[in-house]
């Protein structure tokens, strides 16, 4: 049941991304509304899919690799919609739909088997820690997308050679604001994710911090974002430098999520 819902939402995400892409390249404005509507449908279906999965497995569906990436994609969509509700950033949806689609494709190719949860990890810390951490990642993903858009737009304005992006991307100011907003929401959430994680570790394994690879990399990521936030809010960095830092830090997020799981062994369960 949940599998069918998942396949359905992937297909609709694909449609939405295609509509957005055609709109972006051909500048056909009516298609943007279509893309947005399709994205919303896919998102709702995805939500139902996650609920169904939770009912099927009997625990919060953020344990296996498939579940985590799928939830990550969902949180990116959620952050985007929450952001869109407050500000509009021209054509951000194009980039978000592409990111969500690629995450969903990654999830689609991962094993969908239900990983039985070891009794040690059965705790209400699981939904709290995992969902907070992934929501933080959602906002940080938006910051990264904003950073990429900023760099693309800035390069065209600086070099005075106007190509594909100049007319299609929003103003530098709007993109910088997007980064500001996402960092100021994402970073505290990320910190909270770390803290709840260590409480969970205390409960499950008896110590707050183990220095296992996942924890270490989370800390590295945290320091990268701390640097970005510090430079941004106290030194007054903005624009290009913060954009680059946001992108680098997000790569670190992705590495924490996947690289650590596949390259380095650790206590986080879904490594198997």
């Amino acid at each position, binding site marked *: 049941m949940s599998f069918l819902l998942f396949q359905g939402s992937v297909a609709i995400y694909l449609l939405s991304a295609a509509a957005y892409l055609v709109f972006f390249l051909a500048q056909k404005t009516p298609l943007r509304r279509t893309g947005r509507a399709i994205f919303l449908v896919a998102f709702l279906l995805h939500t139902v899919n996650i609920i169904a999965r939770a009912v099927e497995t009997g625990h919060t569906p953020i344990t296996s690799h498939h579940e985590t990436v799928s939830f990550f994609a969902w949180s990116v969509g959620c952050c985007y919609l929450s952001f869109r509700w407050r500000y509009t950033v021209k054509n951000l949806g194009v980039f978000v739909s592409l990111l969500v689609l690629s995450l969903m494709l990654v999830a689609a190719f991962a094993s969908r088997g239900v990983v039985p949860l070891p009794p040690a990890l059965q705790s209400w810390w699981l939904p709290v820690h995992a969902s907070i951490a992934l929501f933080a990642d959602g906002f940080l993903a938006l910051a990264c997308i904003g950073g990429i858009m900023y760099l693309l737009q800035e390069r065209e304005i600086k070099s005075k050679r*106007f190509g594909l992006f100049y007319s299609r991307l929003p103003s530098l*100011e709007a993109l910088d604001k997007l980064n500001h907003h996402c960092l100021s929401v994402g970073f505290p959430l990320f910190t909270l994710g770390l803290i709840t994680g260590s409480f969970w570790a205390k409960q499950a394994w008896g110590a707050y911090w183990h220095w296992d690879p996942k924890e270490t990399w989370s800390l590295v990521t945290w320091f990268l974002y701390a640097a970005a936030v510090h430079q941004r809010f106290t030194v007054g960095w*903005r*624009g290009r*430098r913060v954009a680059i830092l946001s992108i680098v830090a997000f790569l670190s997020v992705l590495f924490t999520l996947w690289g650590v799981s596949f390259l380095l062994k650790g206590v986080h369960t879904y490594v198997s």
Partner: protein
Amino acid sequence: MSRDAIVLLGVNHKTTPLAVREKLALSAGYEEPLQLLGQVQELREYYLLSTCNRVEVLFTCRDVERAQQRVLDLLFGQAVTAEELDRYVYRYVNDAAVEHLFLVAASLDSMIVGEAQILGQLKEAYRHATKIGSSGFILNKVLHKSFSVAKRVRTETRIGANAVSISYAAVELARKIFGDLAGKKVMLVGAGEMAELAAEHLVGQGVAEVVVANRTLQRAVNLARCYNGRAVSLEELLDQLQHVDIIISSTGSPDLILHKEDVRPVMRERRNRPLFFIDIAVPRDLDPAINDLDNVYLYDIDDLHSVVEMNKSERDKEALRAQRIVAEEKLKFGKWLANMESTPTIIQLRGVIEGHVRSEVEKTLGRFEEMDEQARQGLEKMVAAITGKIAYPSLQYLKSENHCVSLHDRIKTIREMYQLDNGANGQEAP
């Protein structure tokens, strides 16, 4: 009783190579050529426009062929041969002339379609014509109409909204950098015409404040007053950089007035809020290396030209809509012109009726000049009222949209009814 013909002769950048245009250009200003045209007996009213891309003369006359020949000989005869004139000079008569004038005024015939400067040049040329009194009833009307057509085109199409000229391009860029311009501050360094134009567009976008820095403070103060702004001296330039966001530089200075090393510490003070420099001076005022700084953007006049080029195709679409407006206005004006044909008849008719009333009054009450002031004024009013009332049905008949009988026939009817042409009334047309 036909009216005068409206004729337009000219060369522009589309029909004529630069080499020929240069020879025809009226470099000595308007006075002299307008005086020359005054010698042509055939012309009733005339006006002359000369810009770097076009030379046009507009006049009204009775005998189109003769007048045309004389004007060409007089203005361009010495510069180029008759064959060249034949090949390059375009001639428009009546409706076509009106349409062409509207197209020029609306900047649809310009090299950069939509640029706003042409309207100013047109008004300037018209001012010269009115100064020597060479424009009359018809030209006044058609030129004023062309101004309002230009305005209509500008407000009803986005032909002007699309970075149509350098200053628009600058505003467009500023919007890509700052997003909303409300609350941003602009500084003009040096007070050239281009800088003023750009500042005007920025003020139209809602910028918060305009600061003017100039070598002579008096000029700065005057200009600042136009925008409710502030004037500062050129020495304060560096301090001001902390507070403003957009800098438009157009001084006549032969050297650079601002270097990269001057701007770098300012950015720290500004906490990296972006700065947008626009350098429209030739030679340049600002060090090109300034563009290498983070969050600082520097555009010089050539860079802006490339932005203008990029916006061209979008503008061509708007040009189509603008042309529709011109065609519409041309039709309206054509109607007005046609009605013009009846004007002499109307004046004459009123004159005849008033003459009759006046002579009957004088027969009964004695000569007007001998009456006391109050009685005379009362009678004058009465004469005017009776004239109006008697003439009214005939005037309505002439003016109304009557599709069955042509205006020409209607005029003929009225003239026959009132015997306006046989001189028996003893009244001459004024």
